[in-house]
């Protein structure tokens, strides 16, 4: 979903290149989340090198009417959101990891997603094209 969504987002919002990861985080929370889910998560818990942050929000429209039955207590219902963030950023050459720290469906008071920058991607030739 993220791989396709990034084009939709860029076409509709017209945002330009972000100059650093902090700007990327702001664009994700203030523009993208607002556009697709109507909520604006807070960007908190930056680590020292500015390569990881948390998105915190209280209302999650995806789980408004959802309750997890006991046999599925381990299920990450909104893992879709993590996949979208990873896929979308991959298409703009940012490799990130995204995990759930807090989830309302597991009984926490809010939802918290941790996004970590793993590295910048460069388009490289696959091995079969390299000269011997």
């Amino acid at each position, binding site marked *: 979903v993220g791989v*396709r969504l*990034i*084009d*939709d987002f*860029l*076409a*509709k919002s*017209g945002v330009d*290149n972000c100059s650093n990861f902090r700007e990327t985080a702001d664009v994700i929370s203030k523009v993208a989340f607002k556009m697709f889910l109507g909520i604006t998560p807070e960007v908190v818990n930056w680590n020292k090198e500015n390569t990881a942050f948390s998105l915190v929000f209280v209302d999650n429209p995806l789980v408004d009417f959802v309750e997890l039955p006991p046999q599925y207590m381990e299920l990450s219902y909104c893992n879709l959101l993590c996949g979208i963030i990873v896929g979308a950023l991959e*298409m*703009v050459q940012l490799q990130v990891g995204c995990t759930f720290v807090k989830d309302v469906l597991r009984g926490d008071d809010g939802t918290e997603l941790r996004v970590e920058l793993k590295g910048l991607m460069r*388009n490289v030739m696959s091995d079969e094209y390299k000269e011997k």
Partner: protein
Amino acid sequence: YYQLFIINRNGGLVYSKSLAPTAPALSTNDSLRLGSTFHGLHAIAQQIAPIVSGGIERLETETFILQCFQTLTGVKFVVTAAPGTPDLDALLRGIYEVYSDYVLK
């Protein structure tokens, strides 16, 4: 307007359309070749430019204008038109919006 090309991030042509009867008639192979050649030239131009460059944006000759819009995801929208045609950049951005609405969903 003469022709529209859409080139994906790997350089392959994914869409081409003739927009006027006066546009040159290209066979499928020719359009594919044109698409990948343009992708290559765009990349070379970006790297040899003496300033920070985003690649080929606009090519003007006496007989036509070629405008290219590259998205942040690497998709290129290329349109050729008669000299003096205005607002090609706005046209390409509009096409990007429509592409994201209809092609990707």
